[in-house]
């Protein structure tokens, strides 16, 4: 039987807060978010938080928690609210699909954090690595070592 589910949390926004830091944990952020949370729903996860509510309230909570560790906290929009029966693994009977992009990006985010620290510091721009003029149009060839890694990863 098809379950009838109305649109959930209409008029709200949901944001992911990712933290990749040696000194801040998702638990720290949760406590911090609860300090200013009014009318927002906060869900703590292994990587950070999900905050759902009216946009202005969510932004206020995020601005407050960003102060904890500005260069190591990353925020993005999420389409689905937490616990949505179509995405939540509690209803799907197994691991939730997705997160491949996040998994990849969390691998490079440490260099982004370093970049944010450097760019936000008062150092003159001339002391920082120069921005690259443009990216090559041609798609680079797949590195042989990388191909080998992909093959090895596929073999059980």
């Amino acid at each position, binding site marked *: 039987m098809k379950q009838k589910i109305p649109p959930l949390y209409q008029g709200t926004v949901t944001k992911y807060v990712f933290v990749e830091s040696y000194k801040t944990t998702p638990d720290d952020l949760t406590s911090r978010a609860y300090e200013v949370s009014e009318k927002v729903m906060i869900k703590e996860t292994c990587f950070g938080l999900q905050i759902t509510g009216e946009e202005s309230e969510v932004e206020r909570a995020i601005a407050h928690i960003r102060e904890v560790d500005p260069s190591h906290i990353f925020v993005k929009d999420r389409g689905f609210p937490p616990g949505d029966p*179509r995405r939540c693994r509690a209803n799907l009977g197994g691991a939730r699909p997705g997160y491949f992009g996040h998994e990849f990006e969390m691998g490079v985010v440490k*260099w*982004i954090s*370093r970049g*944010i620290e450097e*760019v936000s510091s008062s150092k003159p721009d001339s002391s*920082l690595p*120069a*921005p690259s003029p443009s990216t090559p149009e041609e798609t680079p060839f797949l590195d042989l070592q990388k191909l080998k890694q992909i093959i090895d990863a596929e073999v059980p």
Partner: protein
Amino acid sequence: MPRCHNVAKVFIYPATSLILSDLVARFGHKPLGTALSIRERIQTAGLDSPPLQMTPDDAKRGLRWAAVEVPSGVRGRMSLFGPLIDEAEAAVIVKHADFAFGCMGCARTDELVEFLIKQKKVPTLEVEYPSDEETGIAFVRNIKEFLQNLEVSHE
């Protein structure tokens, strides 16, 4: 922190990128990613219960951005990206992103999105994901300078 300026709508690609979404918002602009399209769909009541994030109608809506002979997978994806591109006042694109690699639907959509952005002639920044600390600093600096120099005209 961003200087006092108009907020531009900046299309990001890969449209689910956490890093791009964060940096665009951090430097004072509004990132346009897929989450916005998905949110709009699932919060709008319709015939489907619950409202679906993708319906057969989306392949028809995609006809606005892709020709009829283009596979439905590309047209369906374009129904998510197309309205964002129409709205965009600038774009930040990561070229050759490993995690954007996928089937031909993904690959052709990547090409079509880049083509449409270039055709729109909005300020566009093309970068590549960093591979070490130095390229990480250059990546952030590139994006910061691009976003700070955006001049937005709201008509």
